[in-house]
């Protein structure tokens, strides 16, 4: 990996609540045009790690280490500077499409909100931009004036994606963004994300518990367990030649199509 | 939690001194002393809260009055609790026409001006403390009934209730073991809040002469006397007024505190 291209670097990130360490010495880099998958089970600290990039974690958490975005250490920025980076440079797509939107505001307005917060633009100009985004996530222009409850789960997830992309960020964080969807819809959304990623040369951090999605989307993989990264490498090396025992179990315990095993390996020390 | 402790401590102090009134009071609350010097005395070390127009010790009268207020508050609420939980539970669990009938009754209860209803009934039945308790209880169960019904409606759709049904557990046991214990948290909150309002109603009735009859003391009828002397005997209105305020406030503090503590979203979740 070319070190000059890295745009976000997490170095020795440690997060504590009280005296308890929940994330320990986590380091990885995001590069433009590459997708990094952060894989782990619930309670592995993967979501907190992602939230700490935008300082979105709860206030009682104490953070150490550094997160460098284009030469700036995000931990040293004040609230206003962080707010500028949120959405503009780094944005996040949440997991739950049903609860992440305001139920009484039209979809178009919600997408436009991000523009209004950060830029001075005329009304028709904003509308133009929103329609462009809707086309990009392959939604009908009529969606502009729909309410969230009128949309299917897949369409809602597309809207969230449009909301995240509204200000042309360079880094996109997807937190279990496809977990709540049906498989057939999940496949379409992942294809869409991959296309947009290539088109815009985005750096993506894709958080998931599901190794089979890793194969579809990622270039690099970090496996987290109990707050520690246990394995880190390219997709090929991690999936085909996992070095860590835990990673091996995680890959092996998912039933595969045409599986002839009678039992799945699941016991882990 | 802090609010509950403060509220509970105040109520405890009032309740214990009310129970031990004969010991704490120092004077017989009914004993009059009509000599010129004895009536309408200012608060002093001898008479903490002063004396009234008949020379009776206000502090002692208020202690005995606290018995009235607290017992009316508790008993009225217990009556409304029994009716509210029973009807609300039946309504929410069984639904259908039973639910429809009970809900119409609740709506009627809601649309009645309750205080005038209570005044009317007390006038008919004769003003005494038992009637007051019962009537307040019988007229204040409607909000509780709605609350319990709503809880039952959501709980009966929960998977653990379905599971119990599949296992052949009887309706009675499902209600008793699975639904009722999980439905009670908001009921406790609303109960403590209604104790406060029952005390207020009793005070108002006594103030109007429809509650506890003189010479027996209650906070409300001490206020009635105070009303006539408000220009120069401020202690006759201030102390019972404060007592009502502090008691009701304490119950509301407990209620609000409970609401937070019992909210499953506030902790419990891992």
């Amino acid at each position: 990996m070319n070190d000059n291209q890295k745009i976000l670097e997490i170095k020795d990130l440690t997060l504590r609540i009280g005296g308890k360490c929940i994330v320990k010495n986590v380091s990885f880099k995001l590069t433009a045009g590459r997708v990094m998958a952060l894989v782990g089970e619930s309670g592995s600290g993967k979501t907190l790690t992602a939230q700490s990039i935008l300082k979105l974690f709860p206030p009682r958490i104490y953070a150490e280490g550094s997160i460098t975005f284009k030469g700036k250490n995000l931990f040293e920025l004040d609230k206003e500077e962080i707010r500028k980076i949120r959405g503009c440079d780094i944005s996040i797509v949440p997991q739950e499409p049903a609860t992440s939107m305001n139920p009484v505001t039209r979809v178009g307005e919600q997408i436009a909100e991000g523009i209004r917060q950060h830029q001075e633009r005329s009304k028709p100009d904003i509308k133009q931009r929103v329609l462009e985004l809707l086309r990009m996530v392959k939604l009908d222009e009529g969606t502009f004036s729909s309410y969230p409850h009128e949309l299917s789960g897949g369409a809602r997830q597309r809207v969230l994606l449009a909301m995240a992309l509204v200000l042309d960020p360079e880094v996109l964080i997807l937190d279990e963004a496809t977990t709540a969807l049906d498989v057939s819809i999940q496949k379409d959304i992942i294809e869409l994300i991959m296309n947009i990623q290539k088109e815009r040369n985005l750096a993506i951090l894709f958080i998931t518990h599901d190794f089979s999605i890793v194969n579809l989307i990622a270039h690099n993989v970090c496996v987290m367990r109990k707050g520690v990264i246990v394995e880190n490498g390219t997709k090929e090396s991690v999936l085909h030649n996992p070095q860590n025992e835990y990673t091996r179990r995680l890959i092996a315990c998912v039933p595969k199509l045409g599986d002839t095993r009678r039992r799945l390996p699941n016991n882990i020390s | 939690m802090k609010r509950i402790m403060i509220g509970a401590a105040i109520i405890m102090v009032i309740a214990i001194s009310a129970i031990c009134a004969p010991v704490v009071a120092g004077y017989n609350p009914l004993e009059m002393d009509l000599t010129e010097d004895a009536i309408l005395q200012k608060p002093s070390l001898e008479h903490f809260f002063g004396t009234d127009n008949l020379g009776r010790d206000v502090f002692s009268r208020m202690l005995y009055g606290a018995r009235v207020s607290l017992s009316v508050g508790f008993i009225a609420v217990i009556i409304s609790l029994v009716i509210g939980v029973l009807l609300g539970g039946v309504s929410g669990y069984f639904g259908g026409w039973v639910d429809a009938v009970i809900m119409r009754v609740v709506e009627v209860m809601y649309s009645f001006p309750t205080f005038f209803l209570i005044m009317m009934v007390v006038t008919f039945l004769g003003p005494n403390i038992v009637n007051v308790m019962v009537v307040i209880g019988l007229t204040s169960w409607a909000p509780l009934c709605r609350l319990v019904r709503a809880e039952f409606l959501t709980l009966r759709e929960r998977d653990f209730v379905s599971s119990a049904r599949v296992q052949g557990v009887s309706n009675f046991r499902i209600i008793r073991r699975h639904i009722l214990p999980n439905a009670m948290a908001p009921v406790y909150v609303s109960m403590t809040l209604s104790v406060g309002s029952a005390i207020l109603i009793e005070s108002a009735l006594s103030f109007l002469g429809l509650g506890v009859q003189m010479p027996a003391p209650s906070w409300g009828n001490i206020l009635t006397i105070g009303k006539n002397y408000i220009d120069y005997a401020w202690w006759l209105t201030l102390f019972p007024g404060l007592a009502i305020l502090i008691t009701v406030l304490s119950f509301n503090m407990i209620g609000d505190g409970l609401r937070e503590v019992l909210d499953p979203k506030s902790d419990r979740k891992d």
Partner: protein
Amino acid sequence: MNIIEIKNINKCFRKRKTAWWLKKEPIKAVSDVSFSVEKGKTFGLVGESTCGKSTIAKILVGILKPDSGSVSVKGEKDIVFQDPYSSLNPRMTSREIVSEALLVRKIGKSEIETRVRQIFEMVNLNYAECKDKYAYQFSGGERQRIAIARALIRKLDVLVLDEPVSSLDVLVQAGILNLLKDLQENLNLTYVFISHDLRVVEFMADTVGVMRKGSFVEMASKDEIYSSPKNQYTKTLLSAIPDII
């Protein structure tokens, strides 16, 4: 011998009236569904969200009644739900939860005690450690084991599993799937296994039915469904599964 026989069942739900001028339109949840399951076998029911699979689960165990059609399930039956948070009463200990079915059947105390101990062991839970704990003190996987124990405390013939592993982490999921296979073998249970995950269903089932919008689009033996699917929707579902390697 077929232990489950479902014939032409239909089920509609009445939609809440949102305005008085609108008609109450019934929503068809299940239409004209038939299937049967042999004793000791697993019937896999696959479908995406809102296809009606949970409605069928509830009809099988009698929580819901079908509008028409016949349901025959021979012997004792029970159900395990998807969400282990809402399927256990938060105010009961695990022992109380598991033993309730025996308690209401007026079985003696000491007999209940031995049976509950046995069942905890069967689902790989430590009885002494777990018995006095409440649901919120357990992990998702442990809760699901308790739910299975609660069902198996009676001598069961049929167990309906409604997405039993979809809210669990993969390692925990594997443990539960293994457990279910062992239990089936040891107790000669018949399963109706409902899931949206075709891989899990393939691992568990003998016969598979694919549901869409309330009815079956395809039903066949596992091998047929997975190696030569006939229906277009089945093919779409199969092709949507990401390969892990």
